[in-house]
């Protein structure tokens, strides 16, 4: 028995190693560190699904100039020490020319390292703190930054404010981590500039189990709007608790909290909640490319319920494959060549999933637009057109 187990496990291991090494030479690799088992895994699983299906679509439609596109996804569980090890594995063992990183904490901590290693980092952490090429020349993202999106939400609040006798009051709700705090400074600066009163911040940790005490404190201040920076899973708890303690405030959620799961998780409490995002909801008819995405989803993961995060995964791979194609055409798939290709993207059309992007060597922020949505009967309904906040040097890189 013992011998049998030993033999079997050794065989398994050898086979595994064999699979890893016995690949064709014509492979273009890309790494991805995504949270599949940590506090943001609900989001990460959708993202990974989108990226994996998109990678399959890339290979089905000709690959990277005929070469196979190989996406290596690793689970960092939103932890920095794990991510650090995987980063080293991807860089030294797999020798990828760049990688995708989900966690803001990891992205912020690896920023010095990727600069040192000259490793392009494409991320889900849409913070403008990583968009200044003079400080972080190797960081790129797919769409408008958190900071800009929070300002877009504030602009929308101000533009739709009817009561001229007083300023609208806004409170920020966020978890106490780099992601949660990223937008605070520019959002407060902007609020002051356009005449919005900012109330005391409410810190709600994630994974969130209870937010009643914060909601009761917030009720005392009684803001007109509350801007939630979290994830759908955690935002749902906040919304439900707010309803329970009788908060009258209108909630606005950020891009990471707004997806099709929010009304499912929060139920009635999510009705009428606004959100700011740039990603098209899954199944939106006005986007022609949606049919391809839906076909792939139907084919490979029928049992899962897709959200707009799945679409974002596709958008990410569209950008990455475009960049790799460009670098491959020039015959140089080194990490520095890939970086140069990122900075070459000009009005690159992402098939309507997110707005077209432009990245230059001076400014890595790819877009400055976003849309406001509202949850009506469990569906995401757009309530505004694209709002463009523009490239204001005052808010650049803070």
């Amino acid at each position, binding site marked *: 028995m013992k011998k049998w187990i030993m033999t079997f496990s050794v065989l398994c291991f050898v086979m595994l190693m064999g699979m890893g090494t016995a690949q064709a030479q014509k492979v273009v690799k890309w790494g991805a560190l995504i949270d599949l088992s940590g506090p943001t895994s609900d989001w990460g699983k959708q993202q990974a699904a989108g990226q994996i299906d998109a990678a399959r679509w890339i290979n089905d439609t000709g690959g990277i100039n005929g070469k196979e596109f190989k996406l290596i996804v*690793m689970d960092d569980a939103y932890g920095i*020490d794990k991510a650090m*090890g995987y980063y080293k*594995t991807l860089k030294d063992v797999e020798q990828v020319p760049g990688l995708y990183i989900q966690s803001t904490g990891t992205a*912020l901590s690896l920023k010095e390292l990727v600069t040192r290693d000259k490793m392009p980092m494409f991320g889900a952490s849409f913070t403008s703190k990583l968009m200044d090429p003079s400080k972080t020349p190797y960081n790129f993202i797919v769409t408008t930054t958190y900071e800009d999106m929070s300002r877009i939400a504030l602009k929308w609040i101000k533009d739709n404010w009817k009561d001229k006798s007083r300023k609208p009051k806004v409170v920020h709700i966020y978890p106490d981590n*780099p992601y*949660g705090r990223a937008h605070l400074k520019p959002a407060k600066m902007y609020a002051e500039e356009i005449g919005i009163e900012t109330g005391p911040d409410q810190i709600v940790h994630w994974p969130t189990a209870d937010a009643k005490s914060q909601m009761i404190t917030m009720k005392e201040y009684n803001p007109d709007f509350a801007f939630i920076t979290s994830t759908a899973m955690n935002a749902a708890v906040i919304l439900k608790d707010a309803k329970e303690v009788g908060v009258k405030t209108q909630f606005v959620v950020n891009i990471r909290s707004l997806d099709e799961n929010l009304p499912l998780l929060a139920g009635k409490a999510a009705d009428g909640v606004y959100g700011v995002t740039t990603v098209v909801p899954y199944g939106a008819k006005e986007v022609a490319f949606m049919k391809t995405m839906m076909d792939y989803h139907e084919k490979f993961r029928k049992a899962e319920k897709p959200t707009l995060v799945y679409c974002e995964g596709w958008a990410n791979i569209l950008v990455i494959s475009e960049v790799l194609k460009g670098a491959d055409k020039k015959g140089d798939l080194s990490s520095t060549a890939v970086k140069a290709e990122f900075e070459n993207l000009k009005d690159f059309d992402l098939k309507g999933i997110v707005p077209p992007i432009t990245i230059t060597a001076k400014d890595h922020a790819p877009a400055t637009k976003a849309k406001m949505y509202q949850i009506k009967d469990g569906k995401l309904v757009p309530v505004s057109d694209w709002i463009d906040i523009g490239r204001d040097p005052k808010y650049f890189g803070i």
Partner: protein
Amino acid sequence: MPSGLFHENYSNDERIFQTLWVKGWLWVFILFLFFGFPFIVSDLNKILRFNVLHTAILTGIFVIGAHGINILTGYTGQISLGHGAFMAVGAYTSAILMTKAGFPFILSLPCAGLLTAAVGMVFGVPSLRLRGLYLCIATLAAQFIIEFTIRRWTGLTGGTQGMFVPYAAIGGFIFDNDKKFYYLVMVLAIATTAFTKNLFRTKPGRAFIAVRDRYFAAELIGVNLFKYRILSFGISSFLAGIAGALWAHYISLIIYEQFTIHLSIKYLAIVIIGGLGSVLGGIFGSIFYVGLEQLLEVMSKELSASFPLLITYFVSIKEIMFGLIIILFLIFEPDGLAARWRTVKAYWKLWPFSY
């Protein structure tokens, strides 16, 4: 010429190297660590498909920390759930001293150890009155208090943003890549191991063991319980601080998330798997734990690359496997890897003529 190993006097019995062979093999092993291993890592990377050097450095750091908790838990019998936080104290002390006070690394490293020792001794004071699970809860308080302080003292520690740590440097020599850092960690890990091994041949070390085995009897024969318990906390935390400082300079960014209760439990798991109250246990436990983590990760990575649609399942399987292996391990080898090592050694010593 004696036909076996006979202890004719005490000093003979207390020798670290019982035979010349053991000493010889140890030297071969150390020479391999310094002059063999670093030169074959790129080949090992290709075969094993994970970053071997990174794993070795992490193992080295964990060996230092594991010796620390082994002195406290394995040898003195005081359970601590604050070891992760003590590591944080060391990490932040070294980082802050270097960035804000301009200390050189050679000074900031021992300072990190000493400050952590001081903090550990303060949190060790309840050990006079509390023992067993109650002490465990008291040290748990250390974990949360330190973690909270780091998270909120933004001006000093960078709060939730964490802080960037400069490279370690001695004189003009900068440890700016993994290979250089590997040597630093190995030197310190070997020094720590020698220190721990020798500690239990001295008066304080013996007092620790007496306190663990029967504190009442120890007190009767003149062991000052309070003094030695606090001393044990001090030495244990000192090593945690050194491990923390090395961690900080290696990872180059420290943030409170790295030093949560999970790390404290991980340390306890390492020494329990390796073998409580055994110097070899700390080493084996670290190798096993860090190695297993990497191995399962590489398996899940390779399988996911071949079957991308099943990636979420592989991730879950990885976590289940990890728990399962550790549970099975504790069932079949409750005394830890060190005990298994002794059995294997005894078997081979007489092979093939054992009976």
